[in-house]
């Protein structure tokens, strides 16, 4: 079983978000970066579990500069066998999908996993675009994945319940919470990662289809107003006249 897992680098969840260049660029100064949790906790770990069960290999792929190798090493420490870094700044989702599709098209992967979204730009579209470019089936928001031979069984959470579906390999799926339990890499895994291959390739002819005009932060949260339980009419009044939500 040959699995490709797409991993992204995102700001740590505690990062204070700010922008530069007239609000057109994310200010990465002093920002700690991590592997996108949906990619790591669910897509990568499930891929490693399936490899451990069925044999085969897990390759991780990332589009980004050399400073992304920190998260790539983490993926190798968790259990991926090798890694590919496409040496380019990711410009938009299509750029990333096209670069990965160009690499993956002729490598014989049984399936490709991504997280359901990245926690920075929340695009949620790379996996779908990738499937489109490869002309493979796409299953979004999967919460479980089992593979037997050439057939995969996945579950998706849908409104009010779950959907179970089957698909033949090759396919692309995006992983949601529930697909696996996060793993903490141990130090033996970290040292083993030293010698695992990390190949750097050029992005080919990947193109961006969108440009950022500006970013805007949400309005700052205001203080909480406490209403005595004895005076619910005050709450109704505030919701009516101040928040204007009822």
């Amino acid at each position, binding site marked *: 079983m040959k699995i490709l897992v797409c991993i992204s680098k995102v700001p740590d969840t505690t990062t204070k978000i700010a922008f530069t260049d007239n609000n057109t660029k994310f200010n990465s100064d002093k920002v700690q970066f991590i592997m996108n949790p949906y990619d790591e906790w669910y897509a990568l770990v499930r891929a490693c579990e399936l490899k451990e069960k069925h044999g085969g290999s897990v390759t991780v792929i990332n589009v980004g500069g050399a400073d992304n190798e920190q998260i790539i090493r983490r993926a190798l420490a968790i259990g991926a066998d090798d890694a590919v870094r496409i040496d380019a700044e990711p410009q938009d989702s299509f750029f990333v999908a096209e670069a990965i599709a160009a690499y993956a098209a002729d490598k014989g992967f049984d399936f490709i996993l991504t997280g359901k979204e990245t926690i920075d730009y929340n695009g949620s579209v790379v996996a779908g675009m990738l499937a489109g470019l490869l002309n493979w089936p796409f299953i979004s928001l999967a919460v479980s994945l089992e593979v037997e031979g050439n057939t995969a069984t996945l579950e998706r959470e849908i409104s009010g319940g779950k959907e179970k579906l089957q698909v033949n390999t090759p396919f692309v799926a995006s992983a949601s919470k529930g697909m696996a339990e996060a793993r903490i890499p*141990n*130090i033996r895994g*970290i040292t083993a990662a030293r010698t695992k291959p990390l190949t750097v390739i050029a992005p080919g002819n990947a193109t961006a289809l969108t440009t950022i005009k500006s970013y805007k932060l949400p309005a700052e949260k205001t203080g909480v107003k406490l209403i005595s339980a004895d005076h619910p009419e005050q709450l109704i009044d505030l919701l009516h006249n101040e928040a204007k939500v009822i």
Partner: protein
Amino acid sequence: MYKDLYQHPDYYQLDELLTDEHKLIRDTVRQYVKKSLSPIIEDYAQRAEFPTHIVKELADIGAFGPSIPAEYGGGGLDYISYGIIMQELERCDSGVRSTASVQGSLVMYPIYKFGSEMQRRKYLPKLGSGEFLGCFGLTEPDHGSNPAGMITNIKDAGDHVILNGAKMWISNSPFADVAVVWAKDEAGDIRGLIVERGMEGFTTPETKGKWSLRASATGELVFDNVKVPKENIFPEVKGLKGPLTCLSSARYGIAWGALGAAMDCYDSALRYSKERIQFERPIGQFQLTQKKLAEMITEITKSQLMVWRLGVLMNEGRATPAQISMAKRNSVEVALNIAREARQIHGGMGITGEYSIMRHMMNLESVVTYEGTHDIHLLITGMDITGLNAFK
């Protein structure tokens, strides 16, 4: 449910001095601590109980003997990695760090450094995997800062030696499977030997009633005519060089570790100062609170630079025991002062188990005393710079 909100202070962007692997190791230990140790440690400390299940967990993440080569069950890492691991563990609790540093620096390290190949193969993999817990017997009831005066001794009895004496203040002893013990032979030379639980005449009574390192087991090692095979004696090393070499390695770990406790106290105090409202404003807005916090981060930053540089020297094999003494002494003093100031910022809450401050403060009273007292390390620095020995 308890939530560990710790965020690492890095005022001078010292992370840039670390490799990706160092940061990966730090993330690993920090994640383990936040997930598995922080939620339980206060309870174990309150009950003065050693959480025995963490021995296997610490082994699984690779906290035992990180700088011992992998072929003997260690991690094969550099000394900065070792320091980082100790720092992350002591950020949680000095007792947990003590368990790991005794196992790595005081048990695995001497077996690796001074042991025969047979001893290495027999003990190191089991110690690295947590199957065995080890302890280190140097200090005696009447010989603490002056270990050369020890009275524990071995007498030749053919294919074995007879060990008599007692060791005190021994971390891990009540649960240890093996003890690295230092004793004088008939020629008066200090020798190291490996004593196994179950050897007749060997007991490990627990030290009760501690107000410090309550989540770590401390005890005695009592040897009453214990027959120890000669193959358990370290073949080459004689004299105080043996135990002092181990202590240098452990003290290096403490220099990093104690800063972990300091950073936890600072982080908690900083957060609390922004949340606690008095006189209609957060107490962090008051000058006296800011003075405390500003001095804390200044001392932490200076000490972070010191231990990082010491780590580089350790990696290059150039760190001297006196340099290690200076860093151990400095880090523990900084941590103790910060714990005290942080406790004040937390007000009454600072004395409860809701926060880690008081536990750190009490733990650090052991750390400032063990592995060379605060005063002894000062005199080592004094001797190093003057060339004059204040001990004799």
